[in-house]
């Protein structure tokens, strides 16, 4: 167990950590830190959930009437 990782340095590397893009020793250091740190465990849960929450909250569907009106617009303009 090393002290190479504190919360702040772990947060800097979090995306690479979650995408398994770190060297094995660094990855293990972060795993050790997160396992022993309730704050990082909680923060990782929020960080992981954030893209999914924003994806769901910003989902927009093309209105049906726009589908044909776009083609009509483009026919007029060319």
């Amino acid at each position, binding site marked *: 167990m090393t002290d190479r990782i*504190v*919360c*702040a*340095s772990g*947060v800097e590397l*979090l*995306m*690479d950590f979650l995408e398994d893009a770190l060297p094995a020793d660094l990855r293990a250091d972060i795993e050790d830190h997160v396992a022993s*740190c*309730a*704050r*990082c*465990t*909680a*923060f990782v*849960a*929020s*960080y*992981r*959930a*954030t*893209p999914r*929450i*924003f*994806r*769901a*909250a*910003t*989902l*927009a*569907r*093309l209105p049906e009437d*726009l*589908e044909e009106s*776009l*083609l009509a*617009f*483009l026919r007029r*303009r*060319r």
Partner: protein
Amino acid sequence: MPVPGAEATDEALAVRAVAGDEPAFEDLVRRYQARVYRLAARLTGNDGDAQDALQETFLQVYRNLGGFRREARFSTWLYRIATNAALGVQRTRRRRPADPLDAFLPRFDAEGRHARTPAQLQVAACAEELLDQRLLAAKAREAIERLPDGYREALVLRDLEEMETSEVAAILGLEPAAVRQRVHRARLMLAGYLSELAGVKP
């Protein structure tokens, strides 16, 4: 010869469209219009702006198809046009400068430990349970608008449209490492923003 029943590739349709095949161009429009609209809505935060960006995107695609080089994927080329169109519409319409989201980056004490409690750090993960769905939708759009320029499009393409980092890099003309750095910082800001929204003051 096209295989019967097989869908033409984007690139094959583009080549036919360049040669004046109007139905091939319209097939490309039908194939991508919903995705371009969704992307534009996320980048502009506004349905009317998304509609304008959608029209502008396909007008530019039509006018510039001759410049499409087949060594790039058609979708990469199209999404570059769509991203620029959406950001252009958003820039001209922005009513007031958006307050930046930097204030929501995580905070640490002098030893580099998280300054907040576990409960405060966890709360963003429960935002959907804690917040009204319509409020969350409105605030999510506002938060994306408040991301710094350069971070907004990286986050939207990578995390909301779920594209590979390499494709986002090709669309934005950045190195993959730069895309990852921007997406990461944008996620940190959005996570902090969600925490505040769900109950923690910054």
